[in-house]
């Protein structure tokens, strides 16, 4: 009896250790962000803050410009996410539902090739390209490569979904006199919403988290996104640990909130994206 019980709890013990390893850093950061000074953090890292110093949050948000970075990130992630979904849904519709089959096959293959190219490899050439286009230090220099980079996988995922829609649905709509544009917006798009949401979330997170391009294509502080802004923030407040932790909380919290509501969608989207890639 005891043996059975031990066998049942052992996996939980091992897993709890792992879960602790995942969560402890966050707890440490949140506690530290609420402390007044480094001595409090150093002397008692896991002690609950004696008095909650929310002032750190107000200071970081207002005077240290975290708010600027935050809104830049939010706005780029939203626009790029939406643009990516609309463009790739339209393309996926043309490729899977419209009857120009030979052209579609060629385009589909071309898009597949794009997925083989790691984004790092393109970094320098993209840097030269955006600087030739005069876009360095504008949000376009991020919006365009982000959106373009997300297109291949988005098209593939949405196309896979659209292929499964029965043809009767659109035949009926065409009989009713709908053109292909109407068909796309009124019939196919609504049916495809689950796939669109998944793709949107994945692209949104990708932009929210992106560092490399945003670090090198943008040097104006007012245009920085959260990841790069955070690194600058760290360099500026090197030893003010409470402050840095506050910044970390600001950049991590929105993602965690999103995750709390949409965990299944997010897991599904991110894993599907990688495996098919």
């Amino acid at each position, binding site marked *: 009896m005891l043996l059975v019980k031990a066998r049942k709890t052992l996996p939980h013990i091992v897993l709890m250790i792992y879960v602790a390893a995942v969560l402890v*850093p966050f707890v440490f950061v949140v506690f530290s962000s609420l402390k007044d000074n480094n001595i409090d953090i150093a002397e008692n890292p896991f002690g609950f803050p004696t008095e909650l110093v929310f002032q750190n949050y107000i200071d970081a948000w207002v005077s240290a410009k975290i708010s600027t970075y935050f809104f830049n990130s939010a706005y780029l992630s939203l626009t790029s996410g939406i643009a990516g979904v609309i463009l790739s849904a339209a393309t996926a519709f043309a490729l899977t539902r419209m009857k120009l089959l030979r052209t579609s096959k060629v385009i589909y293959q071309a898009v597949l090739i794009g997925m083989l190219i790691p984004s790092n490899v393109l970094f320098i050439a993209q840097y030269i390209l955006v600087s030739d286009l005069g876009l360095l230090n504008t949000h376009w220099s991020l919006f365009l490569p982000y959106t373009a980079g997300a*297109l291949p996988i988005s098209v593939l995922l949405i196309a896979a979904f659209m292929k499964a829609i029965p043809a009767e649905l659109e035949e009926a709509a065409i009989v009713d006199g709908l053109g292909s544009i109407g068909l796309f917006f009124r019939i196919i798009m609504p049916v495809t919403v689950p796939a669109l949401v998944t793709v949107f979330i994945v692209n949104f997170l990708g932009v929210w988290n992106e560092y490399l391009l945003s670090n090198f294509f943008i040097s104006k502080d007012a245009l920085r996104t959260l990841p790069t802004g955070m690194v600058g923030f760290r360099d500026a407040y090197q030893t003010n640990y409470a402050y840095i932790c506050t910044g970390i909380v600001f950049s991590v919290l929105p993602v965690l909130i999103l995750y709390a509501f949409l965990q299944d969608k997010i897991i599904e989207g991110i894993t599907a994206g990688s495996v098919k890639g």
Partner: protein
Amino acid sequence: MRSALRNPYVYALFVIPTIGLYFLFTIYPMLSSAYYAFTDWDGLNDPKYIGFHNFTTALQDPYFQNSIVNNMYFILFSVFVQVPLIIMFAILIGSVKRLQGFYKTTVFVPSILSTAVIGILWQFIYNPEVGIVNKFLGLFGIDTIYWLADMRYALWAILITNAWQWMGFYIVLVLAAILAIPRELNEAAEIDGAGGFQRAIRITVPLIKPIISVIVMLSIAGAMRVVDIVLVMTKGGPVSSTEVMASYMVNRAIRYGEYGYGTSLAMLIFVIALVLTALYQLTFGRTKEEVTY
């Protein structure tokens, strides 16, 4: 009646924006990289064709060689340390009934966060004055270790951070495959007297081989792409001990304006990644089953 779906103008309207962006920001940069890689372009003077000079220089460049070795450490660490742990944790999560969903959602969390922010977070954790790692080791009487400033430890510190970020993601992938195994197989083995460990080794692992192959491939590809975390945590230092190929490439190109040389490094990274994945596919990664999830 189907003519609506044959309208070439609508087709063009739907396809051209995507194709245009894709060509401008993916295909064109790829082609222009291939061109610049054979030139001495420095961003100021006109590019001049210099044949394979950049490539021969790169292969003899001790800093680049060093960064290749560091990328190999990333690959070896993820394949031989992370993958076995990933399989073990996935099997454990698959074996429990209670809290299964909780484990799955929790371990996945780090992989949806920004690598740059995770780098900052872990810098804080490794911090010699206030970080919890040294605090913890201090309990055992171990002296303060300057994790990110000490050549002996910096790469390990980054490898561990990288593992912390990505393991959960792979665990969830493997878990999906484990949960897809028909329950009867395990039940039959249990009746035959196979213990949990035996069932894991004899039944689960062989059945999830295809997904193991996939995560090894993804790990190799991921290890070749590593860059953010290095740039944020150590900038390749101390003394190049954590420099990886991509961070070295970025440094040479952006900091020193050596676009020609930088793009040749980019091409080499691409080729090395392709060769490694091809080698893996031809040797260990051979699986007959198609994996579709």
